[in-house]
């Protein structure tokens, strides 16, 4: 395989979970948690992945590192570590990589999680936590690793001396920094950040977002940012992908998405964001009907049609394909050219 321009390219990724019922645990159907999703991420950019609970954004994020094995599709990563010395990076399909390749790939792809309280082992001190990836990958001598841990802790705004302390001695925001230091230990090129700030207080959230921006500027890191808070995603993402019930419904540059959303779900999601301005907040109307349907029996046709105020007959029977309506702006909606949606541009 030859190297493409993209750091990561996901092609037709699907993940089905089998539902089991009864004493014999017979298969009683499938949940299409991720259904034929394609996107790419370039070096040094942030792709935001948004949507409500059950939309498949977390499963997608985990599949990127094969923490959940994909059911179908390719996850092509441009690996430098797996290329021969002095040669161009090699494209490796994470979905089919060998265990040995996967271990090397995990140097280049890392993940940070939402809950800074359960993702750190309480029995390990911070030094052991941050140096664990180095130990597993057998990188450097012990004293080198210790120095590296110290400088990692400092790079995320903690103190090198914090290495001797335990997770419970830190606040939520500090624990998230420890998680980030651990993810940075192997100098990855891509970090999947799954709701990294949603458990944090507002004043601490800003500190962690600033840290992510700084790290990106300094190291050219790429992020896949999974979050439900559109304001957070807008702030640090270059491009945004919107998911609904397992499918990608819209993908565009952040500015294009906010200035001219093309999918009614994107419009509704943006309209629902609470705005810290009493006059605007009270005047708003999201126009969105009902609840998110169950993922086990999603509506036929366009998954969104029962909640869509623009839905027409075709939406009830035919699933809309993803199509490019402007360069870099794709949408899965039958009516994208015919309806006028609100702009949320500044």
């Amino acid at each position: 395989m030859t190297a493409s321009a993209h750091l990561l390219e996901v092609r037709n990724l699907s993940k089905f979970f089998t539902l089991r019922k009864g004493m014999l645990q017979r298969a009683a159907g499938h949940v299409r948690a991720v259904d034929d999703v394609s996107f790419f991420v370039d070096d040094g950019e942030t792709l935001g992945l948004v949507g409500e609970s059950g939309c498949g954004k977390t499963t997608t994020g985990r599949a990127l590192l094969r923490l959940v094995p994909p059911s179908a599709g390719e996850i092509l990563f441009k690996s430098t570590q797996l290329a021969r010395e002095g040669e161009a990076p090699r494209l490796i399909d994470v979905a089919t990589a060998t265990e040995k390749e996967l271990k090397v790939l995990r140097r280049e792809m890392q993940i940070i999680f939402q809950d800074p309280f359960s993702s750190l082992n309480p029995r390990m001190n911070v030094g052991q936590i941050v140096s664990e990836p180095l130990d597993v990958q057998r990188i450097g001598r012990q004293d080198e690793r210790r120095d590296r841990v110290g400088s990692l802790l400092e790079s995320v705004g903690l103190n090198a001396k914090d290495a001797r302390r335990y997770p419970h001695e830190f606040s939520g925001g500090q624990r998230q920094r420890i998680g980030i230091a651990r993810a940075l230990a192997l100098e990855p090129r891509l970090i999947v950040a799954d709701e990294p700030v949603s458990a944090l207080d507002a004043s601490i959230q800003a500190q962690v977002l600033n840290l992510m921006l700084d790290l990106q500027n300094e190291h050219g890191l790429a992020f896949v940012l999974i979050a439900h808070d559109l304001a957070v995603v807008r702030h640090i993402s270059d491009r945004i992908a919107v998911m609904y019930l397992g499918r990608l419904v819209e993908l565009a540059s952040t500015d294009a998405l906010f200035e001219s959303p093309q999918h009614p779900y994107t419009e509704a999601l943006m309209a629902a964001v609470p705005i810290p301005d009493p006059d605007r907040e009270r005047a708003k109307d999201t126009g969105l009907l009902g609840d998110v349907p169950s993922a086990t029996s999603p509506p036929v046709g366009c998954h969104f049609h029962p909640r869509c105020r623009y839905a027409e007959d075709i939406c009830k029977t035919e699933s809309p394909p993803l199509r490019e309506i402007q360069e870099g702006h794709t949408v899965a909606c039958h009516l994208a050219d015919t309806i006028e949606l609100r702009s949320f541009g500044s």
Partner: protein
Amino acid sequence: MSVAHSDEPLIEVEDLRTYFHSEAGIAKAVDGISFAVRRKKTLGVVGESGCGKSVTARSIMRLIRPPGKIESGSIRYRRGEETLELAGLDPKGRTLREIRGAEIAMIFQEPMTSLNPVFTIGEQITEVIRLHLGAGRGEARRRAIDMLNAVAIPSPHQRIDDYPHQLSGGMRQRAMIAMALSCHPSLLIADEPTTALDVTIQAQVIRLMRDLQREFEAAIIFITHDLGVVAGIADEVMVMYLGEIVERAPVRDLFRDPKHPYTQGLMTSIPSLNGARKQRLPVIEGNVPSPFDLPRGCRFHPRCAHASELCRERAPLLLEAAPEHHVACHLQDPELA
């Protein structure tokens, strides 16, 4: 409820202190706060974890259990012609049992805190109605269906016989609101009621609460960490930090002209839908200190960019800086500035 008293506050809290005693020391979760809740109005309470906003709510409901204790202060509740001192009542006594769930109701972030998984939502709502209003079985069921209808649960005749787990998160939250409002409380305390919901469902629930408040004429204490949410529902807002009120103002005044450096910091540190992207956000430096080791003077001073010697030494009082706009900051005190 008598119309003649409609200007008087429904609840008046004065110098309330609720402390938690442990081996590590005394955590002053709520430390000398005073405020009033007016009839049919919504008081928003904002602040970060550990600021004391939930303990304030639980103190009013008298739901503080050991090692927590209301140390001092008063919570006056106007009930018709009489005024009750809630802080002085026996938490397990008859009067409080009559008030809780009927006159003052509470809803939580997690609906399963108040919904019992082994009973249908209909059984739970009718029980509340029969207990507090003495209605018969048929009448209680009719009222329960009306309430489910009022909170926009589709086909309430069928849904009433569902168990909580058969409902989606948004539906459960609405069922809890229906139960809380079923006895027409004069005060509803809502503790982060939309935090666990998706944004589109959150917007529906907030709109619903606003409509129901008009219909049922209840006062609401709405506790949240989300400034956008509070902007959408509150008439008045108080901002808490480490057990104290740092600012209290009508909602528009607070958002147009936040006066406390902490309030200002909270507002500028959240990303907005129209701000500059990919720029560092202004931050409030440092972390919230431990409640066991509170800073001297102004509790915010270690994180405040404007802190002076005075702030390190003396705690500021909550003073009226503009009409109805109260702030506890030396910088706003005309006699000191």
